Structures are given as C-alpha cells and as structure tokens.
C-alpha cells in the first residue's frame, strides 16, 4: 500500500473543457510515484502543456482532483499554493536560462530569489550540479554551453531548491539524438536522487527508443484542441 510520501503527483478523474467546448481531458487519472519518470506523449495540441499548467494551477480544471506531495493543489489558498509551487520544478519549452551568467550563478539566482541561503542553498547547489553532471561546467557562462547542456542547465535550475517533482515540457524537442540521450541520462540520475519527473514529448516513440517500459507512457488523444 502506497503512503502519501510515496506519491509525487496524483491526478484523478481530471476533466478540462476549453471555453470553446472542446473536452481535452475527460476523466484522466494517473499516479506519479516518487523516484519515477513518466512520459506524457502526444502530437502538438493534444494537451501536454495544458496538463502541466493544470498541475501547477496556472489554470483550473473543469472537474477532478490533483494532489501534489499529498496536497490538493486546487484547494490551497494563494500563500500555500506558492509555498507548494516552490516544490514543483518546472522546465518550460523553450527553456529559460540566464545566458549572461555562469551555470552556478543561474542556480544561485533562483535560490536567492526564493530566499534560500546558507547551508541549504549550498546543499541544493551541489545536489543539482552533481545530479545533472554540470559540476565541471559550473564556471562556464551559459551562452558557452551546447544546446543539450543548456537543457540540462534548465533542469538543474528547476531542481536546485529540492522539489518533489520535476515537470519538463518537451525537453527533447529540436535536440540531436546524442543530446536527447544526455537529457535522458539526467532524468535517470534525478530518479536515483529521489526526484520524480513528468516529461512531455511530441515524439511518441521516444520513451521506447530509450528503453522505458510502456507502463510509464501516458498517450494523449491527438489534436483535441481546436
């Protein structure tokens, strides 16, 4: 039996109908365990980014329940929502990094903006750099990194404050297979480090190509959004 602390995200009977009346999700349910990677795959406009928005409560669903780290995110007041939101790492597409700063400065920027300093900041920094393999590159300016390393840096930024879950919006898009492999390695490393990942991809065959079992793939209906 799974306890609250074993589940990173639980989505139950999720329904979302657009203002135009299109039902994007109709009873979607899934569970993302701690130390698990789950792929949400589907073509453009199938609702991948929308799902991530719903989990972060950027928008509200029409019906259903979303638990993040055991908290019902739809019922939290704004103060509690942002406290929980800090425990959700998010990598948007395109990823946002500060190119005029070093790798380490990118992480420190986020940590200081969230008011995380001292020992906790140093721990977060070290953990993020070691899990993503960016430690040797920490003195490099972000603009000096290759495309794959930039994606990994975006992941490092997302996880440096020790979130329970990482939401990655299409981190493989536009990358060479070598760089895609680099990102997959990073996600596996996070998994070992105890961070669950929910990753979207337009490439429906990508999880299988990198050896992930079918059970971790959540296919969405094609082009449900007008």
């Amino acid at each position, binding site marked *: 039996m799974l306890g609250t602390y074993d589940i990173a995200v639980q989505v139950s009977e999720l329904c979302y109908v657009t203002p135009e009346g299109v039902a*994007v999700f109709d009873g979607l349910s899934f569970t993302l365990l701690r130390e698990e990677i789950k792929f949400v795959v589907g073509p*453009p*406009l199938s*609702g991948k*980014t*929308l799902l991530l*928005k719903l989990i972060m409560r*950027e928008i509200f669903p029409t019906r259903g329940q979303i638990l993040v780290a055991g908290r019902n995110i739809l019922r939290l007041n*704004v*103060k509690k929502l*942002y*406290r929980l*939101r*800090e425990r*959700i790492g*998010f*990598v*948007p*597409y*395109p990823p*946002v*990094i*500060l*190119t005029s700063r070093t790798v380490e400065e990118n992480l420190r*920027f*986020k940590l*200081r*903006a*969230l*008011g*995380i300093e001292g020992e906790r900041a140093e721990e977060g920094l070290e953990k993020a750099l070691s899990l993503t393999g960016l430690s040797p590159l920490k003195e490099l300016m972000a603009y000096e990194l290759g495309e794959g390393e930039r994606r990994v840096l975006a992941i490092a*930024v*997302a996880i440096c*404050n020790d979130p329970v879950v990482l939401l990655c*919006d299409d981190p493989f898009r536009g990358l060479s297979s070598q760089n895609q492999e680099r990102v997959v390695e990073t996600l596996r490393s996070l998994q070992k480090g105890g961070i669950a990942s929910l990753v979207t991809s337009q490439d429906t065959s990508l999880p299988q190509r990198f050896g992930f079992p079918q059970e971790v793939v959540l296919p969405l209906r094609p082009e449900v*959004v007008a």
Partner: protein
Amino acid sequence: MIRGVGFIFAELFRTSLRSWTRWLGFSLALGLVLASGSALALLQEGRSEGGFPQTYWILVLKLSPDLRDEKINELGWHFWTLEGVKRVSYRFAGDELPGGGTAEERSLLLWTEEGSKVEGLVKQVQAIGEGAITEVDVIHRVMPPPASLPPLSRVVAMVALALFAFISLVVGRVAVGGTFVTWQTEWDFLRYSGVEPWKLWGPFVGTAALWGLFGGAIYLLVYEGIKFAVRNIVTVTQIAPGYLSGGPLPFVVAFVVAPLWGATAGGIALFLSLHRKPYPRGLEEV
C-alpha cells in the same frame, strides 16, 4: 513572506542602471512636476489684486519718553478702532518712516486712506492720548503698489503641472518598458521558478519609487538653491510669501510625494508593459 524580494529588487535596480539615461529623464521630468506643483501652491498664497499706487495719510504720534510699553500697546489697540484708521504701526526712535525720513522719538503711526478724516482723527487722538502723545505730524504719501502676478500665471502653473505630469508618465513608460525588455528573461526565469507575482512587479514599482526619490532630491536642491539666491529680493516675498519663510513643503514634496509619484508612474508603466505581450512566455501553447 518577503524573503528573496530584496535580492530581486537589487538585481532589477542594477539592471535599471544600464538604461540610466531613461531613468534620469524620468527623475528630471518628475522634478519638473514637483516644481510646477510647488509653484502653483506658493503662488496661491501671493497677492492677486492688480497694483495701483495707494495714497495714505500717516499720523505720526510722538510718544512721551516715560510712557510704558503696556500703555503704548493699549493706545495702539484703541486707535485701531477709530473710524478711518486702516493700520497702526510702531517705530522706535531712529527707525525709518514710510516714504523716507526717520522717527525722532518713539512713535505710533496711524494709516488712513481718507484725507477728509485726517483733521478729525488728529483731534481724537490728541484727546485720547493726552499726556501720552507729545506731538502729532501728518505725512502724505503715495505708496507704490505691492508686486503681484497676473491671474494667468496660476493658469500657466496649472497647465505646466498637467503637462509635466503627462510627460513624466510617458518618460516613465519608456524607462520601465526598456528595463522590462532587458529584464524579460529574468522575469520569465523567476516566474517559472515559482516566485510569487508580487515579488516580480513589486521591485519594478520600488525601482520607480527610488528613481522618483532621486528626482525629489534634484528638486529639493534646485528649490533650496533658488531660495538662497533670491533671499534678499523683496518682490519674491510679495509674490510668493511662503517661499522664503521656510516650512516643510519642499521636504514633504521631495521625500513623500516624489517616491509616491514615481511608484504610481512605475506601476502604470509596468501594467502597460505586461499587457503588450502574451503572458507568460512559453505557456501559450496547449
């Protein structure tokens, strides 16, 4: 929870220094708003009547040398109630008399504009002040009108205030908009990091308030500088009596109104900047 907001504010303010010319323009425009507002307030206190030469008959009542101050005061109040007396003033021996000459002894001066009543007044004061007044002289003087500004000057100050207020909003929009564009990546970076919205817009308002405070400091320097330069010009006292007499006005304007106006202009400018682009970037796609 205000943790982290100081860091964000410091980073944003540092970014604003990269486009310091725009922000300096905002500070100067804001300084002009304060200057025209102050001018409007100070001119309200000045004389507004048109100036004509005034004809006065002045009764110089020479006082007995052994008269006590209390008695002089009492006489002064009594004379002031007499019909036709416009004003009562006092001169020590040696003081200058209106229109020239000096007082030979301590004197009370009774001012009247009605020449027909002079004779009657002389008799009355001699009767009232018997023993206290040794001699009464009458001086006829035509006094120049006090300096005044035409009513149009206030209209001009009001128009200037509105114009500079508008200009400061436009320049503020340019300054905030420029910094917003420069700060765009950091904005998105922080937004995706889960930073609360008020910690994103708050530092913009704070930065605008700080530059507003700088505008207030410039205003205060200019205000006090001009005040020092014109401190001996009587006309200034007549046109704007509050200017030279001091008071908290310039300090309140510089340290309270200026940052508030800066924050307001910054808030409006940021609102306009935010509504020019799809927000937030990267989350538009479903």
